[in-house]
């Protein structure tokens, strides 16, 4: 593991690994673009997780070997993927029926901002000259049972991404259940944002300092956090 070479905290792979560790066996999961994509490679041994990509594939496998790419077998990020044994293809209305109908257990997404109430902004800066592009983000946050965010704790310029109220246009209101950052794992609870785990070399105060909303320290709670709940309740 390459953590904390120059700095404390988790790197991208370690963040993805922490997310993967919380996904139970048998879960149906949709992964967003960026760090979320890395989650697939860290599913713990002995667990089977089925990945859905909203452009029409359930049972998505890893990237193909170079040269074996098929431009008609891609994921939502338009990257070449593979289909595992037991995979199924379907059209867009059926795909979003899965999503909107609450059949996907977990969606892992990136974020521009998350609020203390679980509001998510991850599709637009709201700048007047920006080309608005929303894709399936609003459908995912409205339909999937649990929404996990995985993101650097702050922007490249050090601004907090976890805030009292989002200033960017929302993707959805009160939709986020849990946030994984390079510094901590934070649950969105009825009482507020609760830190349940800290990255190596990171203190609760470090996290609070880089956060635009008040945090609760649940790191000593037993258990600090629940497994991603409601997943696989009927499996």
């Amino acid at each position: 593991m390459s953590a904390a070479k120059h700095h404390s905290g988790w790197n991208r792979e370690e963040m993805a690994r922490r997310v993967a560790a919380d996904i139970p066996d048998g879960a149906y999961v949709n992964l967003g673009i960026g760090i979320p994509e890395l989650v697939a490679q860290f599913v713990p041994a002995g667990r089977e997780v089925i990945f859905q990509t909203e452009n029409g594939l359930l049972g998505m496998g890893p990237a193909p070997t170079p040269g074996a790419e098929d431009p008609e077998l891609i994921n939502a990020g338009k990257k070449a993927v593979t289909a595992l044994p037991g995979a199924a293809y379907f059209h867009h209305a059926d795909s979003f029926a899965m999503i909107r109908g609450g059949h996907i257990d977990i969606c892992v997404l990136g974020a521009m901002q998350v609020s203390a109430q679980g509001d998510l902004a991850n599709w637009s800066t709201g700048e007047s000259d920006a080309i608005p592009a929303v894709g399936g983000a609003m459908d995912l946050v409205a339909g999937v049972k649990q929404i996990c965010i995985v993101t650097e704790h702050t922007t490249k310029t050090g601004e907090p991404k976890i805030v009292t109220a989002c200033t960017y246009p929302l993707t959805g209101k009160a939709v986020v259940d849990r946030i994984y950052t390079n510094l901590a794992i934070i649950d969105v609870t009825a009482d507020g944002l609760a830190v349940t785990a800290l990255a190596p070399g990171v203190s609760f105060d470090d996290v609070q300092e880089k956060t635009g909303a008040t945090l609760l320290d649940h790191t000593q709670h037993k258990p600090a956090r629940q497994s991603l709940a409601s997943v696989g309740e009927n499996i």
Partner: protein
Amino acid sequence: MIDKRASSAAVAVAAVHDGATVMIGGFGEAGSPIELIHALIDHGARNLTVVTNNTGSGQVGLAALIANGQVGKMLCSYPRSANSTVFPELYRQGKIQLELVPQGTLAERIRAGGAGIPAFFTATSVGTVLAKGKEQRSFADRDYVMEYGLRADFALVKAEKADRHGNLIYNKTARNFGPIMCMAAATTIVQVKELVEAGGLDPEEIVTPGIFVNRVVVVPHPAQESQLVKEGRCYP
């Protein structure tokens, strides 16, 4: 590892509780999951709300479930057909409630329930007694009624083949309500004639992706309702 196989029909339906809403696949006998229905009779859950197109025939399968007094209410489009005597009798005696739903509206309500659509508009039934009490609205100068998505606690479905993920293919016109009922139930229980390895179904051919299925029971030689009726059989 994902393995949705249940060891028997009895095990598969064990969780059905009194008062549950149960969708049951089939159009007449085609696609009717008769072994699962018989397991539900053995199980004995009562006061069920059953969503299904017909009301069965003779004294087996769906008709036997109704005859056994387990069904408090039915949502269906065509509760009257050849050899269907159980439902009409109980209905005339006021012992079972009926919500009559046009067949296409029934299908779309189930599909909507599965797709997270709470309500939609359709022109079907406008100007008829079945539109009574329904919200009506005009779009582009045509009248429509608002209909609600339907969900269920359980769905009992018959398919042809499954793999351990619950991916399904069906047989001919026995497909009918199966795929949409799989989508609309919290727990979907499927009987299939054959279980194949994961990857044994062409991913282009799969009609119901496994995400919509919770338990799979293998019944290699399912009974045909019409044959049982012809033989004068009763269940239990």
